[in-house]
C-alpha cells in the first residue's frame, strides 16, 4: 500500500508585507491529503484557508511569501520557480475558484479555453484535444457539449459556467483538485448539481481539497475536515466524527450556530460572541481564547499546539470531552 501523501504540507506559513508591517495570514499549518481523499478546509473569512493553498501553488499576491514546506508526492513546491510550478498546475494539481465568470475569459470560445492547456503544452493535437473537451463537458453534465464548444461564457448560466470551469480544471487529468468555495455563488439547486459533478469525479479517484465556509457542503462530500481559525488549523478529524463530537470549542460553536432545516428548533441560535481577530492583531495565547466560553488563564498565556492524535488532532488546552453530544 502506498502511504506517501499526495500533498504533504509541513509547518507552512504565509506572510504579506503591507504598509502596516508584516501580516501573518497562515501560521505553522501541517496537513496531509492522501490520494483519492476529499479533505474539507472550513473557516470563516480571513482564516487563511484560501491563502494556504494559493501558497502551495505559488499563486500568492506579489507581496506575499510562503515559508515552510509543501510536497506534492514528495516533490517540494515552496521556493520553486514560476516556470516549474506552471508545469505542475493544470496537469498535476488544478484549482477551481468561487466566481466562474472571472475564471473564464469572456472573449474566447469555451472550446478554445478548454483545449488551451492540452494543445499549448503539446499534450494532444487540436482534433484530439477537441474530442477530449467534448468528453470533459459531457462528464460534467453539460447538455449538447459539441455545440457548446463554439459558445462564449456569457451564453451559459452561472451553474453551467462553474461546471465548465471544473471540466477545464480536470481536462488534463490532475491527481488533486483544489476547489475554493466552488458553490458559494450559486443557487441551492444549482449548487446540488455542481456538488454532484465533484462527487462523480471523486469516485473516479480524484483527490479534492474543498475550501468552504458551508458546513452543509462539507457534510455531503468530505472524508476528513480541517477547521481553521486565525491562520491556524485548530482541529482535524474524520468528517463523521467531527460533526458527531467536535473537540475544539470553536468547532462546536460553529456547528451549533448554523440554523438547520430539520430537527428541533432552538429559540435562539448559539452565538460566538465577538469577532475573529484581524490578521494584524497579535493575540497572545490561543487565538480563540477571547471568544471562548471555556478559556482559562493558560489559554490566554500560551498558544496550544495541535496535538496529533491519529485520526483526530486538536489545538486546545481544554478540548471538549469525547462522547459530548451537542
Amino acid at each position, binding site marked *: 500500500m502506498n502511504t506517501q501523501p499526495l500533498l504533504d504540507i509541513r509547518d507552512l506559513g504565509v506572510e504579506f508585507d503591507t504598509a502596516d508591517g508584516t501580516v501573518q495570514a497562515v501560521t505553522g499549518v501541517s496537513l496531509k491529503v492522501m490520494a483519492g481523499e476529499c479533505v474539507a478546509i472550513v473557516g470563516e*473569512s480571513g482564516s487563511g484557508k484560501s491563502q494556504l493553498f494559493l501558497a502551495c501553488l505559488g499563486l500568492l499576491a506579489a507581496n506575499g511569501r510562503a515559508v515552510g514546506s509543501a510536497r506534492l508526492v514528495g516533490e517540494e513546491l515552496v521556493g520553486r520557480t514560476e516556470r516549474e510550478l506552471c508545469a505542475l498546475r493544470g496537469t498535476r494539481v488544478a484549482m477551481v475558484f468561487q466566481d466562474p465568470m472571472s475564471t473564464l475569459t469572456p472573449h474566447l470560445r469555451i472550446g478554445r479555453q478548454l483545449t488551451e492547456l492540452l494543445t499549448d503544452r503539446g499534450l494532444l493535437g487540436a482534433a484530439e484535444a477537441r474530442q477530449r473537451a467534448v468528453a470533459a463537458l459531457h462528464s460534467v453534465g453539460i447538455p449538447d457539449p459539441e455545440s457548446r464548444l463554439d459558445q462564449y461564457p456569457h451564453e451559459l448560466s452561472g451553474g453551467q459556467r462553474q461546471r465548465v470551469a471544473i471540466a477545464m480544471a480536470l481536462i488534463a487529468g490532475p491527481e488533486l483538485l483544489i476547489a475554493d468555495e466552488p458553490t458559494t455563488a450559486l443557487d*441551492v439547486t*444549482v449548487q*446540488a448539481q455542481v456538488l454532484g459533478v465533484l462527487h462523480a469525479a471523486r469516485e473516479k479517484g480524484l483527490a479534492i481539497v474543498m475550501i468552504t465556509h458551508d458546513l452543509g457542503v462539507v457534510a*455531503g462530500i468530505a472524508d476528513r475536515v480541517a477547521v481553521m481559525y486565525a491562520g491556524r488549523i485548530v482541529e482535524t478529524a474524520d468528517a463523521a466524527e467531527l460533526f458527531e463530537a467536535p473537540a475544539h470549542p470553536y468547532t462546536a460553536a460553529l456547528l451549533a450556530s*448554523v440554523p438547520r432545516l430539520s430537527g428541533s428548533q432552538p429559540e435562539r441560535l448559539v452565538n460566538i460572541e465577538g469577532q475573529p481577530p484581524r490578521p494584524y492583531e497579535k493575540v497572545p495565547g490561543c487565538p480563540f481564547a477571547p471568544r471562548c466560553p471555556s478559556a482559562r488563564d493558560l489559554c490566554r498565556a500560551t498558544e496550544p499546539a495541535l496535538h496529533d492524535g491519529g485520526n483526530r488532532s486538536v489545538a486546545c488546552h481544554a478540548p471538549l470531552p469525547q462522547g459530548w453530544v451537542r
Partner: protein
Amino acid sequence: MIAPLLEVRGLGVQYGLGGGWLGPGTRRLQALQDVDLVVPEGRSVGIVGESGCGKSTLARAILGLAKPSAGDIRWRGWTVDSADRARMRDMRRGLQVVFQDPFGSLDPRMTAGDSVREALDALEDTGVEAECRRRVEAALVEVGLDAGFASRYPHELSGGQCQRVAIARATVVRPRLLICDEAVSALDVSVQAQIVNLLHDLSRRHGMALLFISHNLAVVRHLCEDVVVLYLGRVVERATRDALFTSPRHPYTRALLAAVPEPDPRLASRVVAATVTEEVTRTPPGAGGCAFAPRCAHAIDRCHGERPPLEVAGAEHLVACHRWRESASA
C-alpha cells in the same frame, strides 16, 4: 376589522430590457406578477426563492424604489400614494429596511453615530439635542455596540459591526415593519448567528414585524412564522413555517428544500439524489402554463398550457400547482 400593517394585492413589476442608442427597448421583463402578501402587526414573514425570482424587487416595490405596473400596496389600509405627504411620512417612519452589503449601506465619511442620527433627524421632529444623543446611543447599545462605537467610521468596523449599525439606523425610529433584504447573507456563520438572534430579539421586544427576504431556507425557518415561496416572479406556495417545512406541497418548494445540504453527514446522501435537472428558463411574459413546468418531474400537458391558481391546501396553506395532491404522495 383592523387593516393589516402591510397588504400587497396583485402586485406586478416590469423592467424594460435593453434599448440602446436607437431608443428605449420594447422587450420587458416581468419581474413580479400577481403577488399577494399580508404582513400583520408583529408577524415575521419570510420570502424565499433563488436568484431572479423577484424577491428583492418585491422589497423595492414596497419601499417605493420600483414602480409597480399592476396591483396595489397598502400600509395600514391606506393605498401608498406619494402625493399624500403626511401619510408617506408616517409610512417612511414605520417601514425601514436593512440591505445585504453592510459596507455599502453606510456612508464611509460618516461616523456610526452620525449615520444613526441622520435617520432620526430625517424621520422625526427631533427636539432637545441631549435627548437625540441619548436615543442614538440607546439604539447602538440595543444592537450590541457600546456607546464608544458612535464615533467610529465604517472602515474601522467589521462586517458584522457595520450590519449592527445599519440595524440601529433602521430601528432608531421604532419602525413597525423591518424589511431585511438578504441582511445576513454576506456574513460569516458565527456572525450571522449573532445578527439573526439580534433581529429575533428586536422584533420580539418591540412587536416589530419582519419581512425577511433570503435565499437561506434554514435561516428563514429559524426566524419566520410565515413563509412565501417565489418562483420566477410568482407566489407558488405560502404557508405557516411548520406547514411549509414539514409538508411542503409545491414540487419546487420540495426541490428547494431537498437541495439544501444539511450540516450532518448522516443526512448527506440524499443531497446528490435530489437535484433538479434543468436550470431556470424564463418563459416570455403572457405565456400560459406553470413557470416551473419545464423543470418539474410531475408536469403533465395541463401544466404547460394552463397556469395553476393559488388554491387552499390546508389551514393557512396555499399552493399554485395542478398536481399537488398527486405529487405530494409520490
